[in-house]
């Protein structure tokens, strides 16, 4: 326990020694985020995607009208993510339900029309896609005049595809170069801080976010964000976010960057109160850590894809929490910065390029995402949630980490996996369902 963090966003930013990014390289998306941060406001963003053009426009319009400093999101459907555009087209023809916006099936022209008079400097829009091989999507985005997108060669390959990592890395290199070649550069966010949504220890999340950001920069991107997903303990998350900012500041130099926090992406509380409480915690975590942007979740997401109104409610709630005073909380002091830096440096030592280093690191288990079933992930490392809610290594596999507690290395059962996956669900719902005071580290 040390280093109480302060809610004064501008002070923190200055303390990180960040230089002001050069004007021309700044994208419309990051200019908006920077402006909000300078005014002390948290940018909030939903996950939202609808199949039909008018519905998608209505959704974005709802977000734009929210009482919050919000950016828009177009989440693509699962067929488009895997470049199965024929299935997406067929679904549009037959009216079958899709779980997102089929960008390529609609085409850039129709998408640009859908965004007309809606997307702009005061309301930039990010496309979220989850694709390991997104070149066709990126081409459509560039043509449609999209402001920003996200993902990364590792973060959208290992958890969400069967594409060999080397192939994804090559594809993402070309994608970055496509974006970098545009007159008006798109902003690109690394999803590396969100691996598998839960049960990936913070040092690896931080390292992957920084490594993907370095990869983006290596391929010409000048406007980048680094992600981190809320985990199971606020004090540990504060330490992780501070480590991420410090490492990014050291390694990205004058690149225009900011940090985006994701409200918990794992098994979500099921009571309305529990889900608002975890969302509240994430908004406070964002303010305490100097994070510029927050991707929110809605209470409905535990059950189904949320409506526009539910998204707007969540955005307005998060914005209201962010505007309140948040009492400083002490971060843990468990060496996350040192561990993440060691993972970044030792990975970069493996090859002359960031992409090559990432491929080699995973091939030899030097980087190993716990529980990830992708054929190019060693899947020998294991993580666990300790009794204080700290997310820790149980087995390092071949990663260059200090061995975890042997006590935790007992075989994992299906039930104990469920218990760990549902840690936050229980924690936040219990406040509602059982009147038991939560024992807390802080």
């Amino acid at each position, binding site marked *: 326990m040390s280093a109480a963090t302060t809610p004064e966003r501008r002070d923190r930013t200055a303390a990180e020694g960040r230089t002001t990014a050069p004007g021309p390289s700044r994208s419309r998306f990051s200019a908006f985020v920077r402006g909000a941060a300078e005014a002390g406001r948290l940018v909030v963003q939903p996950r939202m995607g609808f199949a039909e053009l008018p519905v998608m426009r209505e959704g974005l319009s709802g977000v734009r009208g929210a009482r919050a400093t919000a950016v828009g999101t177009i989440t693509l459907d*699962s067929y488009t993510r895997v470049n199965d555009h024929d299935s997406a087209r067929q679904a549009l023809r037959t009216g079958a*339900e899709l*779980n997102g916006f089929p960008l390529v099936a609609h085409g850039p022209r129709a998408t640009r029309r859908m965004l007309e008079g809606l997307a702009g400097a005061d309301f930039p829009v990010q496309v979220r896609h989850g694709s390991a091989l997104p070149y066709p999507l990126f081409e459509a985005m560039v043509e449609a005049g999209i402001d920003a997108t996200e993902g990364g060669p590792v973060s959208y390959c290992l*958890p969400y595809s069967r594409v060999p990592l080397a192939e994804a890395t090559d594809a993402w290199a070309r994608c970055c170069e496509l974006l970098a070649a545009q007159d008006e550069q798109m902003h690109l966010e690394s999803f590396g801080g969100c691996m598998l949504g839960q049960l990936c220890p913070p040092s690896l999340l931080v390292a992957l976010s920084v490594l993907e950001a370095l990869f983006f920069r290596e391929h010409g991107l000048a406007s980048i964000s680094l992600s981190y997903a809320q985990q199971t303990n606020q004090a540990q998350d504060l330490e992780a976010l501070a480590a991420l900012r410090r490492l990014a500041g050291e390694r990205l130099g004058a690149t225009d960057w900011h940090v985006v926090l994701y409200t918990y992406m794992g*098994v979500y509380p099921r009571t309305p109160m529990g889900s608002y409480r975890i969302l509240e915690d994430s908004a406070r975590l964002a303010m305490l850590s100097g994070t510029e942007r927050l991707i929110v979740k809605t209470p409905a997401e*535990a059950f189904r894809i949320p409506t526009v109104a539910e998204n707007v409610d969540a955005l307005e709630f998060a914005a209201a929490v962010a505007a309140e005073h948040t009492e400083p909380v002490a971060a843990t002091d468990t060496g996350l910065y040192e561990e993440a830096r060691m993972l970044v440096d030792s990975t970069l030592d493996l090859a002359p390029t960031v992409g090559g280093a990432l491929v080699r690191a995973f091939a030899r288990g030097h980087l190993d995402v716990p529980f990830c079933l992708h054929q190019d992930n060693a899947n020998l490392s294991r993580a666990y949630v300790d009794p204080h809610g700290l997310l820790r290594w149980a087995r390092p596999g071949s990663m260059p980490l200090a061995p975890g507690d042997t006590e935790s290395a007992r075989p994992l059962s299906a039930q104990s996996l*469920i218990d760990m996956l549902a840690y936050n669900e229980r924690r936040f719902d219990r406040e509602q369902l059982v009147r038991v005071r939560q024992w807390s580290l802080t």
Partner: protein
Amino acid sequence: MPSNIVRKGRKFVVSSVSSDAHMWNLVFLQLLLEERGGVVRNLGACVPDELIIEECRNERPDVLVISTVNGHGHLDGIRLIRKIRQDAELADLRVVIGGKLGVRGAENVAFVEELVTGGFDAVFESEAGLQDFQEFLFGVESSDRPALSTVGAGDGADGTGTEVPALSGLRAAA
């Protein structure tokens, strides 16, 4: 549910469908089946139909367990099972599907009948626990007959009540 009796080790192929990138449901299912003495080949996320078919031909599992939570299960599942049933070698393979099969929450039950009619031996939809799936497994483990469970294979209107990986809120993708 007695869990301490000796059962035959059954062979399972566990897989997602082609468009579904979710993984925790598959990690959980593997652990669950292994704890019950099963031998599991886990194909992971986003598996093309052809790969599932090829693996089933090679592995000859007792059961193919399809788990999907992205809401496209009713579309991908029906396409997959038709291909499987058209394959002479796999026409009699025991195949079950579970998870969040549509994007309508509790109304996803509407898809159950279609999937059963399409050729699945059992469909486990909705937000309840694992009971029905475990009963199905118990039937598989304790029977020498290739008798098919009728769990979830009823008229599709009774709620059938089970999501295979009792895991909700796993929309980690993008």
